[in-house]
């Protein structure tokens, strides 16, 4: 029995790899298991290798795992590309005709003629993936009624014959596996939990989180890997009385957002790096005009068009600073699918309460990954509202009244609240003001919001702490790199290396009190992140004047726990080497 199980299905795009993976996910979620997936797909429109990895466990998971327990390859290319990731005791399931390497072939191999069964026995090549599902149902010990029920749901909209066809393919796969795969090593799903879980992708969690937070208007322009957020909302938001508009470009999308939000509607857009850069001028306007906005950036490999289907965490600098002039904004970084839901809601609360733009920084791996979420975690209501003005007759309403960081906003249509909002520097009334007093006072007003947020209960306890609270080695990371880091820290501690971790979920403003305390208490700070230059490490160095050890990666895939463990071990060895007494100096003397 495995405490958790990591399996990967690999094949050619179009062979049904994702269908197999998603079906397995759904069954596992209904069995009450925790799961996290990872998938890669080519940037080509059609064709190219793709894979989906699933990690299943009885316990909560923080990343998609590392060594595979089970690898399913639908063709030779898939086998050649993926075999090295199979664990020592792992099993391989592959198309019968695949050739195995002379050296390093796994001990357990199931060669199955998927293609032959599909073509000869079912009469259609496209049902091959359902044959694979049949074989896996046997190997994993999936409850047959659950699999059949899911297929019935999946093909409910098609005619009866299509469903029968697929159920037959499932049976053929199961029967073949029963006959040929028994008596050898079998792989079983971990036993299920008590409660059925929800199965969502990061993008779906963002969209659902926006709905739960009361989004009324969504504007966007299609871009990988964020498009699904708009697609999901286009399908569902109108039913709830909301509006979704695909605009002519990203500049128009955020322009519409600015107008709709000023007019009082909770509004949002979602994009990726190239889109965010186009939006940066308007982000400055939103800061200047003090208009709430939620902007989701699902990062991908950059710069420029870069690697549109691969993950990276390299928009941090753009998210933090992208605009001309000093343009304070909030940046939040979810670490998991459930977090995508929660942090999108928080983004709306902060945007509305503080009347400024909030960027939700996720990445391709988080957008695309499926994860189980406890149903109770997606219940939410707006926790903060926009401070609205109640203009009194007589005195002119001052939209930008100085004093508190947040001045009450009059929404267009409110009697007596007529005012100007503008991207120009202005006085309290919103009128153009180019003098030094106005610019200084309004700069203070805009920046003070971040200080106020630092003290707000909404952002209290947003950071995660992991590992040994007395350790000298600290790991600080953000976003989707938090999961692998959490596992790496646990693994290193089990190896006897004391290490602890800190993950802030809000990157602007940084949670200064907790972060400074953590950084001050450790001797070595390792910063794992998915970009070339170590953008977050640079932010920490600039803010706190500390030294950091960067662990960066730009391969388009997430960090693995093992890579982070390696860095921790290195740091531990260096610390040990330094603390050894050096020749010629008395023991105990500081070196």
């Amino acid at each position, binding site marked *: 029995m495995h405490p958790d199980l990591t399996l990967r299905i690999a094949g050619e795009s179009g062979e049904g790899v994702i269908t197999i993976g998603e079906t397995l996910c759904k069954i596992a*979620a*209904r069995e009450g298991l925790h799961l996290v997936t990872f998938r890669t797909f080519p940037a080509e429109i059609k064709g190219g290798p793709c894979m989906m990895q699933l990690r299943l466990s009885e316990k909560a998971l923080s990343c998609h795992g590392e060594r595979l327990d089970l690898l399913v390859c639908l063709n030779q290319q898939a086998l050649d590309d993926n075999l090295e990731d199979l664990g020592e005791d792992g099993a391989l399931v592959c198309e019968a005709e695949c050739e195995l390497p002379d050296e390093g072939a796994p001990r357990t191999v199931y060669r199955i003629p998927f293609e032959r069964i599909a073509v000869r026995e079912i009469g259609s090549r496209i049902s091959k993936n359902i044959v694979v599902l049949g074989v896996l149902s046997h190997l994993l010990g999936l409850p047959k009624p659950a699999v059949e029920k899911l297929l019935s749901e999946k093909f409910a909209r098609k005619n009866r014959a299509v469903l029968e066809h697929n159920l037959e393919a499932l049976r053929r796969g199961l029967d073949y596996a029963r006959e040929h795969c028994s008596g050898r090593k079998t792989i079983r799903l971990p036993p299920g939990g008590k409660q059925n879980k*929800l*199965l*969502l992708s990061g993008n*779906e969690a963002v969209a*659902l989180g926006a*709905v*739960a937070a009361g989004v*009324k*208007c969504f*504007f966007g322009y299609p871009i990988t890997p964020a498009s699904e957020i708009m697609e999901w909302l286009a*399908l*569902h938001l*109108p*039913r*709830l009385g909301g*509006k979704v*508009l695909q*605009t*002519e*470009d990203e*500049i*128009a*999308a*955020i*322009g*519409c*957002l*600015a*107008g*709709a*939000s*000023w*007019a*009082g*509607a909770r*509004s949002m857009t979602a994009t990726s790096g190239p889109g965010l850069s186009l939006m940066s001028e*308007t982000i400055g*306007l939103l800061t200047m*005009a003090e208009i709430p906005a939620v902007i989701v950036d699902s990062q991908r490999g950059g710069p420029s068009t870069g690697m549109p289907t691969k993950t990276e965490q390299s928009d941090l600098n753009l998210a933090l600073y992208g605009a001309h002039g000093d343009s304070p904004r909030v940046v939040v970084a979810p670490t998991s699918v459930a977090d995508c839901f929660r942090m999108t809601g928080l983004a709306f609360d902060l945007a509305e309460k503080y009347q400024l733009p909030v960027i939700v920084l996720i990445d391709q791996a988080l957008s695309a990954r499926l994860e189980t*979420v406890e*149903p109770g975690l997606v219940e939410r209501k707006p926790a903060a509202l926009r401070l609205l003005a109640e203009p009194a007759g007589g005195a002119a309403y001052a939209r930008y009244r100085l004093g508190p960081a947040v001045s009450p906003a009059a*929404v*267009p*249509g*409110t*009697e*007596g*609240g*007529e*005012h*100007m*909002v*503008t*991207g*120009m520097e202005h006085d309290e009334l*919103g*009128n*153009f003001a180019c003098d030094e007093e106005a610019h200084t006072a309004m700069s203070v007003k805009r920046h003070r919001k971040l200080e106020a947020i630092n003290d707000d209960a909404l952002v209290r306890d947003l950071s995660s702490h992991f590992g040994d609270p007395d350790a000298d080695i600290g790991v600080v990371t953000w976003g989707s790199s938090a999961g692998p880091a959490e596992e790496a820290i646990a693994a290193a501690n089990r190896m006897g290396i004391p290490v602890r971790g800190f993950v802030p979920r809000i990157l602007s403003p940084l949670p200064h009190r907790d972060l400074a305390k953590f950084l001050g208490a450790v001797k070595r700070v390792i910063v794992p992140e998915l970009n070339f230059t170590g953008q977050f490490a640079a932010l920490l160095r600039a803010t706190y004047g500390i030294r950091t050890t960067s662990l960066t990666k730009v391969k388009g895939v997430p960090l693995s726990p093992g890579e982070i463990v390696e860095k921790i071990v290195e740091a531990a060895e260096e610390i040990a080497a330094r603390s050894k007494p050096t020749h010629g100096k008395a023991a105990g003397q500081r070196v």
Partner: protein
Amino acid sequence: MEKLQDSACEYLSGVCPVWCPGCGYYGILSSLIEAFAELGVPSHELALVSGIGCASRLPYFVKAYGFHGIHGRALPIAQGVKLANPKLTVVVVGGDGDGLAIGGGHLPHAARNNVDFTYLLFNNAIYGMTKGQFSPTTMLSAVTKTSPFGLPGETVNPAALAIVYGASFVARGFSVKKEHLKNLILEGIRHRGFSFIEILASCASFNTTDMNVARIIKAMASVPSDHDPAKPLEALRLATHEEKIYLGVLHRAERPTLEDRCSEIQRAARARGGGAYADLVAQFA
């Protein structure tokens, strides 16, 4: 400013216009507030949206909700305002550079979406705010600071563009003909859908040749009384006339607005059922 009705003066914010003496935009401002007065729209239900440039300063001078945005982006901003609160009377103001150069990509989409607002494009054929560079409507032969030896590209005809882009209301006015312009603005605001009004105006500081008042007066003509504005090709013929500058309503068509379409989409979506949050969550179970 010349004599205005008292009711029109109530739409003045009290902020003194920053335009140069002799600027044609003063005339447009007075026509606009007279139109508001005649319409009787309460100032708090009025949203004026603009981009950047001399024309885009106008919202400061009017008592209304005003959004002075960034260069070229007035149309998307106004579209957002209208979608969020369809009850507002939304008027977009901007110049030829703002609307046809940097913001030129937004015009076809505001037109095809048929957003129910009125776009006043002040055409003085020059960049005034940045002090005298050519704009998309500057004449080919013009000498400007960035075209000392003539222009590199052809001249854009704003009204013709709007007709071709499918705007459901297209008119052309002249800042000097204030009563006529006021009526055009009134018609534009009353029209359900995207109303595009090109307003010819002189720039007293940087373009006194192209948009010379005397030249326009000489060439201007009223849209013929037998013109059928429902026919876009006829409208285009008038808009692109080589000698005459036709003033008046060139094109008018009735079709659903963006708001109508959004309501239809909401109805269609509701017909599929499952409109509660719990139903959304259930699809992930």
